[in-house]
């Protein structure tokens, strides 16, 4: 039984130019303890997916209009706000992209770390909370934790702030962690440290992780499964080894090809591979396959018919009439 089951989720936003469907019916599962990557270009709906799971979509102008989100057996979309608050930070946690702005600049670190404990574990005494906070700081490997606890966010570096965010997110031992581009704003060496940290904590606490990123390298490092999104839909998903070894959907293939390779020859004239065209606007979703305009393998049927998600025998699925993988 999966920890999280998202079924046909539709999230829409009212804009000046009409209603826009940021999520056009996505479905996926996350099992307990597994790490699932969610990749795609900016604007494809990755963050909206995570926020929909936590019901953090601002109500004007957004709305989760269709679908189900079953977490631990219960439909999140049918819960009251009070029930939701008991889950947020406690059973499902989220960490955000920019560590510079994710912590409140005028409050001390210990206050912010203990806040989540005070909210969800009221039976702890102040001293016990302080101890848990200290333990979490040690778990995320922050040096001199006692001193850091008494400091303010501006006194910490970006990498340390992200560690604090992770500490806050994991303090109540959630079963699911939604990580929205946690390493995008960090430099590469710090990125590696944070990813290692997350892998260790996963072992330690057993949290399932939904890792949202646009960096395929990160996915290859850390994830068990991966889902590729395009224009509000899942276009391919499956175990990481399968998807990387044998991608089916033209978009996935192009994404893999466009990763700059360190072994590429440095002859002049050799260019990076890109995907021609631009992502269509959500205001004007094309009929048929949304990737049609940019696809080298599209045929007539792709203009008129919208492909459904097709499952294969090895646990992957793709949304394409003419998949281009090796069979």
């Amino acid at each position, binding site marked *: 039984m999966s920890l999280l089951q998202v079924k046909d989720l539709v999230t829409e936003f009212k804009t000046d130019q009409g209603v826009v469907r940021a999520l056009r019916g996505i479905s996926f599962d996350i099992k307990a303890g597994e790490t699932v990557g969610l990749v795609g270009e900016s604007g494809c709906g990755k963050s909206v997916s995570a926020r929909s799971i936590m019901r*953090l979509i601002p109500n004007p102008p957004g709305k989760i209009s269709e679908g189900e989100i079953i977490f631990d057996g219960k439909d999140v979309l049918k819960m009251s706000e009070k029930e939701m608050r008991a889950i947020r930070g406690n059973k499902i946690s989220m960490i955000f992209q920019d560590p510079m702005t994710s*912590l409140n600049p005028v409050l001390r670190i210990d206050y912010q770390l203990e*806040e*989540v404990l005070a*909210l969800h574990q009221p039976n702890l005494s102040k001293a016990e909370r302080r101890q848990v906070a200290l333990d979490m700081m040690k778990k995320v490997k922050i040096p001199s934790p006692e001193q850091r606890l008494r400091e303010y966010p501006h006194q910490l570096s970006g990498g340390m702030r992200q560690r604090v965010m992770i500490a806050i*997110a994991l303090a109540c031992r959630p079963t699911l962690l939604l990580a929205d581009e946690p390493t995008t704003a960090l430099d590469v060496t710090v990125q590696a440290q944070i990813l290692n940290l997350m892998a260790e904590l996963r072992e330690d606490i057993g949290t399932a992780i939904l890792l949202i990123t646009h960096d395929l390298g990160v996915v290859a490092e850390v994830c068990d499964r991966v889902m590729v999104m395009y224009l509000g839909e899942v276009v391919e998903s499956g175990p990481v080894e399968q998807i990387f070894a044998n991608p089916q959907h033209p978009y996935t293939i192009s994404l893999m090809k466009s990763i700059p390779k360190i072994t590429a020859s440095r002859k002049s004239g050799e260019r990076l591979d890109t995907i021609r065209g631009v992502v269509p606007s959500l205001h004007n979703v094309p009929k048929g396959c949304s990737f049609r305009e940019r696809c080298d393998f599209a045929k007539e049927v792709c203009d008129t018919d919208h492909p459904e998600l097709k499952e294969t025998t090895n646990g992957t699925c793709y949304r394409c009439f003419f998949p281009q993988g090796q069979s």
Partner: protein
Amino acid sequence: MSVLAKWRESRAVRKFMRDKAAIASLVVIGAYTLIFLWTVFTNLDADHVNSKKPQELSWLQQYTKDTGEAHASPSGKYWLGTDRLGRDITKRVLVSVNVAFKIGLVTAFIACFIGLIMGGLAGYFGGWVDLVITWIYSVFSSIPYIVLLLLIAAIFRESDGLTGLYVAFGVSFWIGPARVVRGEIMKLKELEYVQAAIAMGNSRIVVLFKHVIPNTMHLIFVYFSLLFIGAIKSEVILTFLGLGVKGMPSWGLMISDAKAEITSGIWGQMLGASLALFVLVYAFNIFTDALQDALDPKHQ
């Protein structure tokens, strides 16, 4: 590090201390504050007569009693001379600090408090809450200031000196901070730490008070300083119009009295009251600017 040491080291304080004019202004304000405290502790603010012994003058009246030398010229004995009732002008100037500070502090406090709450709710919740609150302050700020004060003065004309003024100023001065706080909060609520606070399970209203409002305090401090002198200056104008303080000496009262004396060449009261007012307001202006520079997060 002790709390005091850390505070001294903080960026805002260090920046403030580098500004010589700012330090001078702080010294001046400190001097006035000491005078204020002196008037409070020596009960110089109680102008009422002791009801049990009506013949006995209150300490205030004794301190500024008729010396029998009305309109004496400034001299070694009376530095600024005496007024038409023979009261020592210098002493009255000092005692007026009491009224000035009371008006300043209470008004600034009430206005900042109301402004913070109203601006906070309007900016954070938007929608109809915002509509109602902005409608309220638009209406209030459109009523001619004098008319509003006349109305309130009329309502409070029976009660003692200052309540009417507190209400009048409180009701008109909260609009400034409210507008500014509302704007700042509309910006702040989109920041990630607000999202993060909600994502950890806080209710929205708790997030407003625990996380968002503390980040507007730098604006409130500056407004407090501005409203402090705004109130003092307004009191002068109102008293001049006959709507202000009664029964206690204030600079407004002194300037108002002095306008008749000036034509006879008697300048002591006008100079004393105006100068005292000017120095305080000027010091506060410098202080406010320095405060703003020191607290401005963009000057990192």
